[in-house]
C-alpha cells in the first residue's frame, strides 16, 4: 500500500500559463480515487507527473509513502507506480503481447525462469489468456487496454494510474476492467487513481470524488460525490427517439453485399444496407467490432467486399478528389486531421476551402467561444489538450460542410459541458446546412434527442434498432 502525497506543485508547459497551480493533494494507499475535471484541466499532466514520465518542476515534492521516486533504484520505480495511457495503441514497444510482457519484466530484472509464471498469472487475472500470441497492433482498443492492465499486474506496481482508460471502450469491456481494478484495490491493496469524464458505474466504489479545477485539487464530501455521480445514472443513456427506417426514407449510401474482414477475421458478414440522407445516424457496437473500419471503407481508405453506392454511383468510380469533398470523415484521432501548426492556420484552411458563406468570421468566433477555444489562435495544435484538439477538429470539419460527415468518436475525452457545446454546434450546423451525419460514439449521454436512427453492430451484422413505444 502506498500513499501518494503531492505538495506545492506548479506546472506550466513551455511558454504557457500554468496548468497546475500550487497543487497539494494526498491519495490514500489502498484506495480507489476517481479524478475528474473539465477537458484541459490538466488531468493527464498530473498523472504523467506522478508517474515520473514528466520531470517534476523545482519546488514541488512528490512522495510515495514518504519516499520520493528519485530515491528509488530504476527497477523499483515501475514497481512503485505505473500509468495506463488514454490512447491504447501508443503504450507498447514490442510486437506481440507476450514479448511486451517479457520486455516489462526484463526491465524489472525478473529472472527468465520466473517470467512464464508471472505472464500466465497476469493474463489470466485480466482474462485474456487467448490473446497471448496476438500482434498488439491488430488488437482492438479495448483489447489493448486489457493487455496494458495485464502488464501493470505483471509488474506488480503499487500505485496504478489510469488516464481516461475507457475513452474509446464499450460498456462491457469497461465493466470488466473496472471490476478487475476494484479487485486489485480490495484484495491486493493497490492504490488506484483513475481519471475519467464519464462518471457512470462508479457510485458503488467511490466515496470521495477528486475534482481538478483551475489548477487545484479538491475532494468532495460523500453527499456531493453521490450527487455528481447520480447525474450519470444509466437511464440517461437510453436512446428514446430512434425509429426504424421506412421505405419512404431517402438514402444517400446503398451498400450491396457489403462485408468486411481484417487479418482473416470477419468483422461484418455480407449484407445490404441503406444509410439515410439528411439525418443523424448513430452507430454503436463493442470494441473492435469494425465500426471504424466501416467508416474507413466509406471514405475509401480500406478494402471491403460488395459495392457501396453514393447517390446511385459506385464510390470507387467517383473521382477521389470530388468524392472527398462530398463525404468526409472526422478521424477518431484528432491529430490525424490537422495539416498545419497553429490553431489559426488550421481554421484558415477550412475557411478557404469550406463553406465560407455560412461560416463567416463572426460565426467562427462565436463557435470558438462556445467551445471554450477563444484566444488560442497562435497556440500550436499539438500542445492543446486532447479534449481541445477534439473540439477544434470538429469545428474544422463542420466548416468544410461536406454533404455527408462521418464522425468517429467525436466526443471522446470531452467533459459534459464540452459535449453539450459540441452537440449544439453540430446540430445547429446540420439543421442550417441540411447535412447528413453518421456518428460512432460510446458516449451516449445527451445524444438521445438528436439521433434519428440507430445502427447497432453486433454478431457481425449492422442492424437498425427502433424504440418500441
Amino acid at each position: 500500500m502506498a500513499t501518494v502525497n503531492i505538495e506545492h506543485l506548479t506546472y506550466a508547459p513551455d511558454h504557457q500559463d500554468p496548468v497546475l497551480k500550487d497543487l497539494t493533494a494526498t491519495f490514500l494507499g489502498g484506495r480507489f480515487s476517481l479524478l475528474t475535471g473539465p477537458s484541459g484541466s490538466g488531468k493527464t499532466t498530473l498523472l504523467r507527473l506522478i508517474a515520473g514520465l514528466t520531470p517534476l518542476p523545482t519546488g514541488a515534492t512528490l512522495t510515495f509513502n514518504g519516499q520520493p521516486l528519485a530515491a528509488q533504484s530504476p527497477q523499483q520505480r515501475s514497481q512503485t507506480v505505473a500509468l495506463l495511457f488514454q490512447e491504447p495503441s501508443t503504450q507498447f514497444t514490442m510486437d506481440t503481447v507476450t514479448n511486451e510482457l517479457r520486455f516489462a519484466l526484463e526491465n524489472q530484472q525478473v529472472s527468465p525462469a520466473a517470467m512464464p509464471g508471472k505472464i500466465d498469472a497476469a493474463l489470466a487475472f485480466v482474462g485474456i489468456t487467448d490473446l497471448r500470441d496476438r500482434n498488439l497492433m491488430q488488437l482492438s482498443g479495448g483489447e489493448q487496454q486489457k493487455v496494458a492492465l495485464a502488464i501493470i499486474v505483471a509488474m506488480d506496481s503499487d500505485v496504478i494510474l489510469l488516464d481516461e482508460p475507457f475513452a474509446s471502450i464499450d460498456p462491457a469491456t469497461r465493466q470488466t476492467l473496472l471490476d478487475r481494478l476494484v479487485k486489485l484495490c480490495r484484495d491486493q491493496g493497490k492504490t488506484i487513481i483513475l481519471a475519467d469524464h464519464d462518471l457512470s458505474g462508479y457510485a458503488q466504489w467511490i466515496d470521495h470524488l477528486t475534482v481538478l479545477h483551475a489548477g487545484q485539487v479538491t475532494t468532495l464530501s460523500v453527499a456531493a460525490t453521490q450527487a455528481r455521480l447520480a447525474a450519470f445514472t444509466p437511464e440517461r443513456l437510453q436512446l428514446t427517439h430512434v425509429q426504424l427506417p421506412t421505405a419512404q426514407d431517402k438514402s444517400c449510401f446503398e451498400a450491396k453485399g457489403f462485408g468486411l474482414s481484417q487479418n482473416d477475421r470477419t468483422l461484418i458478414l455480407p449484407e445490404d444496407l441503406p444509410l439515410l440522407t439528411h439525418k443523424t445516424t448513430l452507430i454503436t457496437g463493442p470494441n473492435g467490432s469494425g465500426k471504424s473500419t466501416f467508416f474507413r471503407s466509406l471514405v475509401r481508405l480500406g478494402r471491403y467486399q460488395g459495392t457501396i453506392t453514393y447517390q446511385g454511383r459506385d464510390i470507387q468510380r467517383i473521382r477521389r478528389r470530388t468524392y472527398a469533398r462530398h463525404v468526409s470523415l472526422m478521424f477518431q484521432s484528432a491529430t490525424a486531421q490537422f495539416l498545419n501548426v497553429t490553431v489559426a492556420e488550421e481554421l484558415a484552411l477550412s475557411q478557404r476551402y469550406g463553406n465560407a458563406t455560412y461560416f463567416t468570421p463572426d460565426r467562427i468566433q462565436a463557435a470558438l467561444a462556445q467551445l471554450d477555444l477563444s484566444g488560442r489562435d497562435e497556440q500550436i495544435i499539438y500542445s492543446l489538450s486532447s479534449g481541445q484538439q477534439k473540439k477544434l477538429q470538429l469545428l474544422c470539419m463542420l466548416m468544410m460542410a461536406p454533404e455527408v460527415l462521418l464522425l468517429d468518436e467525436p466526443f471522446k475525452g470531452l467533459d459534459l459541458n464540452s459535449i453539450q457545446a459540441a452537440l449544439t454546434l453540430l446540430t445547429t450546423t446540420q439543421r442550417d446546412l441540411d447535412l447528413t451525419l453518421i456518428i460512432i460514439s460510446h458516449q451516449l449521454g445527451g445524444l438521445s434527442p438528436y439521433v434519428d436512427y440507430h445502427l447497432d453492430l453486433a454478431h457481425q451484422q449492422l442492424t437498425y434498432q427502433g424504440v418500441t413505444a
Partner: protein
Amino acid sequence: MNPSLKLALVVLIALEISFTQVWTVNVALIVISLVILGLNRIHIRTLVWLTVVPLFFASALIWSLMLRGNATPHFLIVLFTRMFVYVYLGATFTQTTVPLELTRSLEQNAKLPAKFAYGFLAAFNLFPKIKAEVATVHAAAMMRGQVLHFWSPQLYFKVILTAMNWSDQLASAMMSHGFVEWAPRTYAINVPLRTRDWVIFGASLLLVQIGLFIGLP
C-alpha cells in the same frame, strides 16, 4: 546463424568487394546468395523486384560510363556485378533475420546499449505505420480541399511531425513499462553465440580472401 555475427559478415564482405576488383568473386557471391534465398523460399515477386531495380541502376551506370570515360570492360563488369552483390547479400540478411532476434542479439552478443537496440526495433516497426500515415494524411488533406502530391513538402512535414510525436510516445511507453537507460536488464530469451557461428563466420571470410587472392590480376 547468430544475427549479429551474420550482420558483421555481410558488412565485412560488402566492404571488401568495394575495394577489390574481382568479378568472379562477385558472381560467386551472387550465386551463393541466390541459393540461400532459394532455400529460404523467397517470394518470386520480391526476387523480381530485387533484380529489376538494381538492373535499371546498374545498366544506367554502365551505359553512362561506356559513353563517356575510358573505363575498361573488366571494370565495367566489376561495377555491374558489384551492385547485385550488395542487393542480394542485403536480401539474404533481411530475409533470414527476424528484427526482434537481431535486437536481442545486438543487446546480448554485441553488447550494444539497450537504448540503441530497441531504438532500432522501434524504427523497423515504424515503416508500415508510416505507409498507412501517408495514406491517411492524403485523405485528410483531400477532405479539407487540399490535394497533396507525393512531392508536396506539406505531406512529409506532416508525416515527420507525426513520427516525432510517435517517438515521444514510444519513449513514454518504454518508460512506463519500466525501461530505464543504462539500467541492467535480464533476458527472457537468450540468443546463443555458438562455436558453429564463429566457424561459419571465419570460413566464409577465408573463402572470400582466397577467391580474391586467386582472382587478383
